């Protein structure tokens, strides 16, 4: 099962809105597998959207349990055709993105969302998610609409270069 390269800006596909996926599409499950394998490959990655791998599918995966920041969460979530039904408790937090490896930005997101989607077995479900998990879902869902986190910056002081620690001498 392949680990696929993550598209980085300025790849034009990242700015493209993806149409709803057909649950009967035979490729859908293999797209989700590619996404899983790719997320596993990137330490610290807690979410991926299909368009980041060049797939025109409305799919995202998140698993914030992989992060030290995680509070209550549902572990691994595979979402196909997700739609947010309710959003509340807006708060600004700092985000990064595999498609912009050297940048961080403060972005305002709902800390509580109710959404519906198809799960990894393509069964419809509804869920309430909060805090970091809710933020991750909104970030990935934006990718399905061609919206990148830099598009959500609301002040000149909200963009940062990721300061990398010097690499460990071997």
């Amino acid at each position, binding site marked *: 099962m392949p680990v696929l390269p993550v598209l*980085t*800006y*300025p790849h034009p596909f990242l*700015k493209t809105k993806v149409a709803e996926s057909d649950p009967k599409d035979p490729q859908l499950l293999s797209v989700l597998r590619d996404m899983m394998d790719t997320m596993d490959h990137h330490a610290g990655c807690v979410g991926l959207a299909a368009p980041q791998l060049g797939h025109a599918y409305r799919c995202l995966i998140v698993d914030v349990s992989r992060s030290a920041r995680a509070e209550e969460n549902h572990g691994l979530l595979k979402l196909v055709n997700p739609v947010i039904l309710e959003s509340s408790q807006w708060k600004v937090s700092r985000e990064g993105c595999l498609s*912009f*490896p*050297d*940048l961080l930005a403060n972005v*305002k997101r709902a800390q509580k969302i109710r959404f519906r989607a198809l799960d990894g077995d393509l069964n419809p479900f509804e869920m309430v998610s909060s805090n970091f998990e809710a933020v991750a879902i909104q970030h990935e869902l934006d990718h399905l609409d061609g919206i*990148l986190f*830099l*598009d959500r*910056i*609301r*002040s*000149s*002081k*909200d*963009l940062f*270069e990721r300061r990398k620690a010097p690499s460990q001498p071997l």
Partner: protein
Amino acid sequence: MRKFFELSAVGQDRPGIVTALAKSFFELGCNLEDSSMTQLKGDFAILLLVSAPADQDWETLKKAVTPVMNELGLSFTLRESPPAAPQRPPKLPYTLVVYGVDHPGIVYRFAKAASDLGINITDLRTHVTDNNGVQLYSLTLDVEIDNFKTVQAFEKEVDSLKKEIQVEATLNPVETDEL
């Protein structure tokens, strides 16, 4: 009545610059007012407004600050701040975010679009980062706009500029949460 002085300084970054600077102004009875200090690659840059007791003059302050600056290896300018400008009518605060593949003229084109409409830039930051082998340029600027008609005209300019020079650009009102 306190007097205001503006200091700008830049030099090689190292630990202790802010400490030495704050100590010297503290000992002169000055307050650090508005300031912005940041790392620029390997350098450290300082923009600082200090208020001083009314009997403090520019020569004394400059004489006191110069050896500290020399010790820190910073080149600097110090000037007495002109009297405050008269209160202006409130304006509409907006933020413009621009990013794209680095090429000359990004700041100039967007700044010109603003100034042509009489829009004042109140804060501007730029970053050049390596985005997986591509030099990515990002520009964020805060502006103050007189009225909604000018906002609409600026939106139109931003929209046509982003297509012309092939960058992403979004203009949004600054959100204020009244609590």
